[in-house]
């Protein structure tokens, strides 16, 4: 009796700690938002931001805030969230702590279809903004399927390292195809595609936010509802079967969700890698590996990472901008190497 009370008290304490982490992360995102507003070519001080938000700003201020900065920052957070959740799912279902939609080539596959579309149908990109996530989802899905098939070996299933190696190879092949495509483009378009591929939050308008939002509104609650399944799956196949989970089916659903999240965010932000790696890892350090808390924490860490990277990219070489993806890669690649050097063979 006493013991169980102790345990539930401990549980409560842990939950409290986890909630605390979530709140702190949310506050950090707000702080990053305010700092981000105050950097770059056109600056808004925190007071001006608040004034403008409540409708007391000048016309210019509200134009800058509502038409340029706000959609961009919201997009950064959403992209970071969905990539981090996607990485979290991939890590749990593959049992591979180095999995990430970028490293596995899923982002590259999504990018290829988008570049293909842009080069085949030159025309106004804005009209196709709602089509792009669907195309990217298709590309990402085909790539994920290809990697799965290629990494699968009869009697052995899928070993984590083979999965990663296959991903590295497939993304090398896709980038080769992409290079062929981009070299054919005219210089103006090339600059645009190159910037986009490097991962920049180019959709500085609400249409991109709106095209990304439905995907997140459907997929994120779905992933949340599967948190318990993810807990079981990350214990390993034999354990999961023993506990009565229909592994392959659940894994398939979750994989589709991960691919959808990655594809949709690639379609608006280009190839931002390593967020799906860093988000879940830091989150695991903060709240442990129970997915009920791991998923929201990864999402917030991912959002924070991208918003900060976006601000750094705007600030570091003023007046020109560095694409967010480059900033994230410069932070993320060393982190990946660090994790790799600590991993066991």
């Amino acid at each position, binding site marked *: 009796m006493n013991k169980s009370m102790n345990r539930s008290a401990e549980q409560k304490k842990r939950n409290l700690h986890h909630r605390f982490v979530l709140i702190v992360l949310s506050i950090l995102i707000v702080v990053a938002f305010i700092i981000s507003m105050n950097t770059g070519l056109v600056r808004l001080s925190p007071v001006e931001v608040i004034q403008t938000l409540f409708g007391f700003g000048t016309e210019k201020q509200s134009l800058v805030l509502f038409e340029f900065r706000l959609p961009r920052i919201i997009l950064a957070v959403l992209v970071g969230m969905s990539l981090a959740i996607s990485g979290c799912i991939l890590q749990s279902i593959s049992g591979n702590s180095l999995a990430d939609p970028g490293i596995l080539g899923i982002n590259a596959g999504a990018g290829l279809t988008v570049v293909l579309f842009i080069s085949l149908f030159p025309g106004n990109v804005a009209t196709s903004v709602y089509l792009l996530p669907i195309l990217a989802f298709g590309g990402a899905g085909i790539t994920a399927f290809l990697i799965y098939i290629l990494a699968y070996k009869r009697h052995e299933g899928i070993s984590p390292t083979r999965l990663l190696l296959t991903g590295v190879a497939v993304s*090398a092949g896709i980038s*080769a195809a992409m290079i*062929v495509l981009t070299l054919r483009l005219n210089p103006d378009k090339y600059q645009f595609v190159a910037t986009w591929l490097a991962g920049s939050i180019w959709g500085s308008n609400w249409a991109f936010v709106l095209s990304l939002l439905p995907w997140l509104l459907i997929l994120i609650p779905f992933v949340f509802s599967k948190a318990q399944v993810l807990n079981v799956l990350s214990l390993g196949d034999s354990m999961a079967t023993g506990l009565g989970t229909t592994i392959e089916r659940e894994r398939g659903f979750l994989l589709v969700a991960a691919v959808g999240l990655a594809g949709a965010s690639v379609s608006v932000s280009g190839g931002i890698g390593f967020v799906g790696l860093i988000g879940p890892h830091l989150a695991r350090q903060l709240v442990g590996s129970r997915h009920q808390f791991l998923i929201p924490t990864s999402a917030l860490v991912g959002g924070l990472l991208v918003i900060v990277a976006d601000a750094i990219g705007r600030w570091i070489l003023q007046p020109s901008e560095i*694409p967010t993806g480059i900033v994230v890669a410069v932070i993320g690649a060393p982190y990946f*190497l660090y994790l790799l*050097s600590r991993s066991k063979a």
Partner: protein
Amino acid sequence: METSARASAKLGKTKGNRRARPVVATLILLGGTIALLLAIGLSISFGAADISLKTVWSAVFHFNPDLTAHQIIRDIRMPRVLGAAMVGACFAVSGAIMQGMTRNPLADSGLLGLNAGATFMLAVCFAFFPGLSYIYLILFSFIGAGLGAGLVYGTGSLAKGGLTPMRLVLAGAAVSALLAALSEGVALYFQIGQDLAFWYAGGVSGTRWLNLQIMSPWIILAMIGAILLSRSITLLSLGDEVALGLGQSTKAIKFCGIIIVLILAGSAVSVVGAVGFVGLIVPHVTRFLVGHDYRWIIPCSIILGSLLVVLADLCARMVNPPFETPIGALIALLGVPFFLYIARKGGKAI
């Protein structure tokens, strides 16, 4: 000589296909050279201006500066094709040495970050010292290759389990991603993206006599070094303990080997850019054909590597004329399935 014979005899017992096959190797060297010369001739004669093989022959041996065809051959097509041949040999031999020394079947200058490092250095040079002469560019390229290799091997060997092939490839992917991101940042900031894009993609069209003049002494020296080292590399490929037991100073050999690899990969990248997978495919095919003796593998890799890149360049121009498809992309189409095949075998190819 005797020791390596004994070593290969010992291996011959354990695995039939490991035995060296000098006859096959000699055939490859002879047949390969003939095929290479033919491919070079074809490649020179093919292009926007139609030139017959006969004209190619007379342009090489009885050059007449008054004929346009002869001038096209001399000034544009010959350096290009010779550049392709040299670069192929460089990538192939650097791959062979890396695979032999580290016993890593997935070693290739593209996969292990050397190419990305050299490209990064080139981007830096283009941005900060525009108009730098090629003599210095090639040196920076060596340094860049060294930077990439150092990062990959450094982080790979920090790990507890040591340098497994898988880990090296993953470290290579991450380091390449990092260096590519940095060079993209530099390229976007200085608006030199499309100039550099051909370097990322790989192409031999920009090769001039000047490049060949500057890089050939380096390459010839490195190739001679590679052939001199080849016996020791065979021993290293049996494992460090075996090599030490047979009286090799493994550290000195590895150091020389690394220098040779950096020179070969660096000069190749400085001419054609980051062409991957040549150093992966060619040594594997060669090893399959001639057995595991690097005294045969290295010369045969020179021939087959040249042949591969010359043919790839020819295809690159034939696929979609008048546009050129980057050879890096073409070779990647061949290299990716090959890589997958080797990775699937679980790295037991060496």
